C-alpha cells in the first residue's frame, strides 16, 4: 500500500514536471507566433510543419552556444542564479490540482502531487523565494545593469506580493480554506469565484503579471535602459534557463489563476457526466477543460504583452502601492460585510 502510494505520486510528479516543461517549451513558440499574428506577420514556420519544431531548434542552439563566464568573483553564485529561478518556477506546480481523480485498476489516483492544507501560502512562499534567482544572478554578474535590474525585480516583486496576498485574502474569507483542492471543489458547476470576486480577480491578475515579470511590468528586462536586464552577462543554456523559467512561471501562474478564480477543472454538467458516462471520462474532460483555461490565460499574457507598453518605474510603484493595495483592502471589507450580511 505504502509503495503503491509512492509509485502513484511519483508518476503524478513526473507527469506534472514533464507537462510543465513541455508547456514552457511550446509557450516560447506560442509567444513568437502570437507576437507575429498580432503584428500581421506569420512567425517562425521553417522548423517542422508550421514551425512546430522551433522550440527544439532554439534549445539546440542555446545548448551549442559558447558558455561565457564574466570576470566575477562569485562564480558559484553566478551558476546558482538560473538554477534557483528554474527550480522555484517548477516547484509551485506541486500543489495545483490538475484534475479531480482517475480510477485506475480500482485505485483512486488523485491528480495532484500533494494536498497540503496551506497550499495557497506555499504558492506565495515559493513565489517570494523565486526572486532570489534574479537577485543573486544579477548581483553575481558583476555588472551595473544586471544589478539595477535585480533591484528593480526585487522591489517590484515585494510590492506586488502585498497586493496579491491581500486580494487572495478576500477569496480565502469566502472559501474558508487554503487548500487549492478544496477551493477547486467548491467551484462546482458554474460557481466560479470570478463571479463573486471580480475586483479581487482583477487585482490578482495584475499582480500575477508583475510577479512573472511580464510586460507591462517587465522593467527588470527593459532593453532600452538596462541592455538585457539581469541576464545581460548570461549566455548559452544558463540564459536559456532564465528565459525558460519565465515561461514556466507563466504557465504555473495561469494554472493558479484558473484554479483560484475560473473554476479549476469544473465545467457545467460534470456531475451528470460522472453519473452517466463514467468518472474517468468526466474527470478526463475536466483536465482538458483546465488546460483550455490555462491556454486562455497564457494567450492573455501574450496578448497583453504585445498590446500595452512598459510602465515607467514610478508608475509601477504608484499602481502597486497607491491603487492596488487600497483596492484590495476595500475588497476585503466588502467581502467581510457581504459574508456577515448573508450568513
Amino acid at each position, binding site marked *: 500500500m505504502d509503495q503503491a502510494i509512492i509509485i502513484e505520486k511519483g508518476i503524478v510528479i513526473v507527469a506534472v514536471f514533464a507537462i510543465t516543461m513541455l508547456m514552457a517549451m511550446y509557450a516560447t513558440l506560442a509567444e513568437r507566433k502570437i507576437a507575429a499574428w498580432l503584428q500581421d506577420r506569420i512567425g517562425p514556420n521553417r522548423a517542422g510543419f508550421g514551425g512546430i519544431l522551433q522550440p527544439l531548434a532554439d534549445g539546440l542552439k542555446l545548448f551549442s552556444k559558447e558558455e561565457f563566464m564574466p570576470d566575477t568573483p562569485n562564480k558559484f553564485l553566478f551558476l546558482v542564479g538560473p538554477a534557483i529561478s528554474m527550480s522555484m518556477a517548477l516547484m509551485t506546480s506541486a500543489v495545483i490540482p490538475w484534475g479531480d481523480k482517475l480510477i485506475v485498476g480500482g485505485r483512486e489516483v488523485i491528480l495532484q502531487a500533494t494536498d497540503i492544507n496551506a497550499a495557497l501560502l506555499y504558492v506565495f*512562499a515559493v513565489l517570494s523565494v523565486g526572486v532570489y534567482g534574479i537577485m543573486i544572478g544579477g548581483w553575481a554578474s558583476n555588472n551595473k545593469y544586471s544589478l539595477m535590474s535585480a533591484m528593480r525585480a*526585487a522591489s517590484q516583486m*515585494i510590492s506586488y506580493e502585498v497586493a496579491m496576498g491581500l486580494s487572495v485574502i478576500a477569496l480565502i474569507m469566502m472559501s474558508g480554506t*487554503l487548500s487549492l483542492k478544496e477551493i477547486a471543489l467548491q467551484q462546482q458547476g458554474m460557481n466560479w469565484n470570478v463571479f463573486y470576486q471580480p475586483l479581487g480577480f482583477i487585482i490578482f491578475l495584475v499582480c500575477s503579471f508583475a510577479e512573472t515579470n511580464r510586460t507591462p511590468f517587465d522593467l527588470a528586462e527593459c532593453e532600452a535602459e538596462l541592455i538585457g536586464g539581469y541576464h545581460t552577462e548570461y549566455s548559452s543554456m544558463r540564459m536559456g534557463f532564465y528565459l525558460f523559467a519565465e515561461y514556466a512561471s507563466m504557465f504555473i501562474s495561469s494554472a493558479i489563476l484558473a484554479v483560484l478564480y475560473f473554476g479549476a477543472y469544473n465545467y457545467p454538467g460534470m456531475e451528470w457526466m460522472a453519473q452517466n458516462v463514467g468518472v474517468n471520462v468526466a474527470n478526463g474532460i475536466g483536465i482538458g477543460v483546465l488546460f483550455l483555461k490555462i491556454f486562455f490565460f497564457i494567450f492573455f499574457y501574450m496578448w497583453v504583452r504585445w498590446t500595452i507598453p512598459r510602465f515607467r518605474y514610478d508608475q509601477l510603484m504608484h499602481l502597486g502601492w497607491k491603487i492596488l493595495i487600497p483596492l484590495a483592502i476595500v475588497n476585503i471589507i466588502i467581502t467581510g460585510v457581504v459574508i456577515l450580511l448573508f450568513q
Partner: protein
Amino acid sequence: MGEIIFYFLAAITLGTAFLTVLSRNPIHSAIYLVICFFSIAGHYLLLNAQFLAIVHIIVYSGAIMILMLFTIMLMNLHANLEKYKPTMINLGATVGFCLLGLILISGLMHTKPVVESYYYGGEDFQSINVLGQVLMNDYVVPFEFVSVLLLVAMIGAVLISKKDTVKKDTIKKA
C-alpha cells in the same frame, strides 16, 4: 528517519549561522542567513507545523532578507572597505555576548522540558483554522497589541521619510 533529518538540518542551521557571522562578504553572509532560515523552516516542518514553516519562509526569506539583500547590494560594501574597529568595541562586544550566553545557558539549565518526548496524537494543532480560533479567542489582546506595534512602526517609517522634505522646503523658503 526523523532523527537523521533533524541532525542534518541542525548541522545546516548551525553551520550557516556561523558562516553568516564569519564570512567577509556581507552578501555572502546574507545568503547564508537565508539558507539558515530555510533550515529553521525545515525544523518547523519536523514539528508538523506546516503553517508556521511556510509563513516563516514568506516573511523571513521572502520579504525581510530580500529587503536586506537589497540594501546591502545598493550600499556596495566590500571586505576591503571595512573600517578599522577599535579594540575597545571588539572587547565590549565579546564581553557582552559572553554575558548574554551565560544568561541563556543558566536560563536553559533551570527550565524543565514540558514534554518529555514528542509524540503525535493526530490532534490538529497547526492548521490555520485552529490557529485562527486560538488567536482570535484566547489571545485577542496580545494579537491586537502586535498590530498596534506594527502600525506604530509604519507611522514611524513614514515620519522619518517625510522629515527630509519638510526641511528642504523650509530651506528653500529661507
